[in-house]
């Protein structure tokens, strides 16, 4: 399986998020496993405070679709599991 380095993955995700006017503070990656147990990559888009509502609908979906497509086109073999988290939000809240 071919993989891109972390910097390249983040660069692609940042460019997609910017193209879709997603207001993000940072983008982080972490290793993950997909449903078949294969290596995957978690891409966390940390949203600026108060911006979560603005991505609902096409903006979020378009960002996910383009991250998947552009990483696949760049030869990334790991499936990207994109997650959004508003800066300062805590899980389960």
């Amino acid at each position, binding site marked *: 399986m071919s993989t891109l380095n972390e910097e390249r993955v983040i660069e692609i995700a940042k460019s997609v998020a910017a193209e879709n006017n997603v207001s993000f503070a940072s983008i982080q990656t972490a290793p993950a496993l*997909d*449903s078949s147990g294969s290596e*995957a990559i978690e891409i966390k888009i940390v*949203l600026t405070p108060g911006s*979560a509502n603005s*991505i*609902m*609908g*096409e903006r*979020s*979906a*378009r960002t*996910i*679709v383009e991250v*998947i*497509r552009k990483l*696949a*086109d760049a030869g990334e073999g790991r*499936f990207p*599991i*994109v*997650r*959004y*988290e*508003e800066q300062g*939000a*805590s*899980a*389960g*809240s």
Partner: protein
Amino acid sequence: MPPPDPEHLLLQADSLAAQPHHEDLRRAISAAYYGLFHFVLTAAADMVFGADRRSTPRYSLAYRSIDHSRLRALCSKLGGTNPQDVPFVPAGGFGRIADFARISGYLYELRNLADYDPSRDFTADEARVAISDAREAITWFQQGSQEQQEAFLALLLFRPR
């Protein structure tokens, strides 16, 4: 008995995403995926036997012939700009149907984490985004041409020898 109503499943997901417990958020994400899954099963079985045959055994057979792994595998093939390892592609490509496939594959993975990974946490925003992604994907599928929809559904239903 008609098949599950995808919109009802998404409304159920909305309700769960408004609850405070992490179990509810997990179930919300799962319901968002299942809304999408039952949407595509209905589209496939409707294509084969027609929506007016939804209460027949043959309709149920077509409906139940598609499992999650089959959908996931097809969605993987449509991840990049150029579909990989599919026996045919519509003349103008898959268009918005490919985007539907990308979201379907993504929500399948998210749903697996929500259902089975105790170490993964979820926020209410994450659940609400997943539900909105499911709704958007269904809209995209409906915006595909008849040829694109039928090509995707045929690839989902039938496998070449």
